[in-house]
């Protein structure tokens, strides 16, 4: 059983007032409480960015690694202990800038981990530079004459790279986000939630108001198994048409399930005393 108090640490959040991180953090804690995630069954892996500070406010054994490297870190953790629910908290710069190469390969390998992408459309911790998800021609600290680059669409990239659970949520809709986080963790395989996260301090375009006016939920008749349809809807973004919900789901063996060594127990529970190596040594005689 996990309570809100169990998840609290002595450190209070230091995000800017109105930061989307507050409600993303709250949604994750709600999911943890409802599913009983705690220090015996869950670990959080975070990159470097505003999102990363979350490890200081959440009492779940965690690893805040290097900018851009949470995915390989999480892959190692999951392979070593398949019992753990492994969550990766990453930002759009952390995941698609510095960590872009890792994202593609972790997705195609279908590690059984859950990626919480804090998508605020720029680098906020370093005060507002353009990120790989920043729209074309948008003015930022690093693109005063307008962003010369075209952005990556995280949902399209995820589906194309082989992710087998791809969803998008609005960070302030706590009820919906909590449900999607639980489903993403239940999913066996590489699950990513693109969480639209307003950054009131630096992103004057993608604000709470903008999202409230333009998001809508995928219709009930939408079939997340249809990959081409998922690609199509994943491209939708703009006035009155920002779809939320689960875009794509595919049942595919996870990377971890490939290893016969892991069938009966997690790697770290397998005894590592290897006294008898004569049959191997003798091969060299």
């Amino acid at each position, binding site marked *: 059983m996990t309570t809100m108090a169990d998840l609290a640490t002595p450190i209070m959040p230091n995000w800017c007032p*109105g930061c989307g991180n507050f409600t993303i953090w709250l949604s994750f804690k709600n999911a943890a409480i409802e599913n009983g995630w705690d220090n015996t069954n869950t670990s959080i892996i975070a990159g470097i960015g505003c999102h990363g500070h979350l490890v200081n406010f959440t009492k779940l054994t965690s690893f805040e690694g290097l900018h851009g490297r949470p995915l390989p870190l999480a892959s190692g953790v999951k392979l070593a202990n398949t019992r753990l629910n492994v969550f990766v908290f990453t930002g759009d710069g952390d995941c698609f800038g510095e960590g872009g190469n890792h994202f593609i390969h972790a997705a195609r390998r279908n590690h059984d981990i859950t990626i919480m992408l804090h998508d605020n459309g720029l680098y906020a911790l370093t005060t507002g530079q353009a990120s790989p998800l920043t729209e074309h021609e948008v003015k930022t600290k690093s693109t005063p004459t307008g962003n010369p680059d075209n952005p990556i669409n995280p949902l399209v990239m995820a589906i194309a790279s082989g992710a087998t659970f791809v969803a998008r949520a609005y960070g302030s809709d706590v009820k919906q986000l909590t449900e999607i986080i639980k489903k993403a963790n239940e999913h066996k395989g590489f699950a990513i939630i693109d969480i639209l996260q307003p950054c009131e301090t630096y992103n004057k375009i993608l604000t*709470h108001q903008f999202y*409230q006016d333009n998001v809508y939920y995928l219709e009930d008749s939408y079939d997340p198994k249809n990959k081409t349809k998922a690609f199509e809807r994943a491209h939708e973004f703009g006035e009155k048409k920002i779809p939320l919900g689960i875009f794509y789901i595919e049942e595919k063996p996870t990377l971890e399930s490939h290893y016969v060594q892991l069938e009966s127990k997690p790697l770290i529970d397998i005894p590592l005393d290897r006294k008898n190596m004569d049959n191997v040594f003798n091969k060299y005689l």
Partner: protein
Amino acid sequence: MDKEVQIGNLKVKVLRDTCIGAASCVAFAPTVFQLDDERKAVVIEGANETAEIIMMAAQSCPVKAIILTDATTGEQVWPN
């Protein structure tokens, strides 16, 4: 005039015109804040909640529409 409700040692007020209904305060402190039919946050009479939770709710407000005042000193605690 925006209604002010005292909870514990805090006086809590929502600036109705500033509020945009992001409802992050409702998410943090559902016993203290609710959205009315105009999607505006209102403080519930007679609610009780810890000062920390109310502070977090206030801090999460994207437009700083929640004003917290220390009941004993009368000094504004948030936004500081």
